[in-house]
């Protein structure tokens, strides 16, 4: 088991049962959480291929009876190199908390931060997951 997957499962196991039940709607997804939301994502294809377009499937679960986000944005950047992608992904809402981001491409090997920005009526949460592509 990779360290990244192990950490994801540990984080998942710490979630409340209701939250886990919500996120279970995305098989094989990686879990992230913020004060306002829980999020699971998986890439298509997986793992992320270097230098090729890929998509991200996202499932968002508001916490504590909160509202679904009004907008979801997905992006990526390389913090060590201080640059982002050369493409601007589009995100399509598919209903029931599901979204699909298209048009991502990581053009350089190394560590990238995948960033999920969830904009609600009264809050914006940014959830980040580091990935390494080679």
């Amino acid at each position: 088991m990779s360290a990244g997957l192990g950490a994801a499962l540990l984080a998942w196991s710490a979630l409340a049962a209701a939250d886990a039940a919500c996120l279970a709607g995305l098989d094989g997804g990686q879990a992230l959480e913020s004060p306002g939301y829980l999020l699971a994502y998986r890439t298509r294809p997986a793992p992320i291929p270097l230098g090729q377009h890929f998509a991200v499937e996202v499932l968002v679960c508001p916490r504590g009876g909160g509202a679904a986000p009004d907008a979801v944005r997905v992006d990526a950047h390389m913090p060590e190199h201080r640059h982002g992608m050369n493409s601007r992904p589009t995100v399509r809402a598919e209903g029931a908390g599901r979204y699909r981001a298209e048009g991502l491409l990581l053009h350089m090997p190394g560590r990238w931060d995948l960033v999920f920005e969830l904009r609600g009526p009264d809050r914006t949460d940014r959830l980040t997951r580091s990935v390494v592509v080679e």
Partner: protein
Amino acid sequence: MRAGAVAALAVASALFASGAAGDPVAPAGLARFSDVEVQRILRHGPWPPPWAPDPSSRVSGRAAAAALGERLFFDPRLSGGGTVSCATCHRPERRFTDGRPRAEGLAAVDRNTPALANVRWQRWFGWDGAGDSLWAESSRPILDPREMGGSARGVADLVRADPDLGRGWVRAFGAAPGPDDLGVLVDAAKALAAYQETLVSGRTPFDAFRDALAQGDVAAARRYPLAAQRGLRLFVGRGACHLCHLGPAFTSGEFQDVGIPFFVAPGRVDPGRYEGVKRLRANPFNLLGPHSDDPARTTATGTRHVRLEHRNWGEFKVPSLRDVAHTAPYMHDGSLATLRDVVRHYSELDESRLHVHGERILRPLRLTDAEAEDLVAFLRSLSDERAPTASGRPGSASPPRRPE
């Protein structure tokens, strides 16, 4: 990582890797590479990689279209005055470059003539990436008044009137040229693209070493000069050249500002990718437009999502390094005459010029003279030393063909 690649890495690491980039020379004429360096080296092959025809051109990969495209490539009648052909700048005997710092067609151009070998694997075309397909890019110089100064009407009239080209057209497209001048120009560009798809550089000393590494073949690996091995270690190690020059073609296919001066003449700058993105979006021949033969627009993802940012100012496409020994002078403006000049440029980078947009990729390498020579030796080993064939096509790899 695929199972085969894992096995190859295990073999290579056992025979060649030191576990750390430590000992400068291994026994029997082999440098030592760390496990990470071995992984990076293996990712630069094998050569040539697989290729599939371009779905946006219905004649991509077709031999009859390539034959027509070859005729058109060398025909100066495509130009406005009948004096300039594609081959005026893309000269086969010079690996499809012209040896000049900047191209000269009907007039002087601000940029260096790029080589054409291996263009079939590219995502963006032209130094600024304003073309998103090989056929779209092939139409551009025909219409550019500084390059060929032609027109859709001129090209259409030529192929309709010339019996030999007309026969080639029927073989390539299954029908005579139609009445729509613009449509004929686009199809001529698709034939030109089909020809250029056949230009594949041959295997190189680096490829032999890389494959020996993958197979654990020490005897074969020893044939790769030690200077090139040391240069390779710099390339994938301290130099971090592999961050942009990656994969079998030694390019990310994307864009980078590497510190070449912005000015192409006093008071005039080349905006590079910044203008390229704008031109791409405005290009009626782009993959989102009506001239693509792919109804699903499966290859248009990059165009649909292309991003314009201020940092694109002064960025130019990362060129492939294959055949680089034969394609001097270098950089988008041809301002560096030799590979030694290129290595010196990266060794002495002006950081204050480079990091105006906040990026932190490039640092001056501060190479010793010996290290610089090693890096040049490695770069030279990326070239196919065999002379081009009579038709001018580099290399010997057989491109895949669609069934006729």
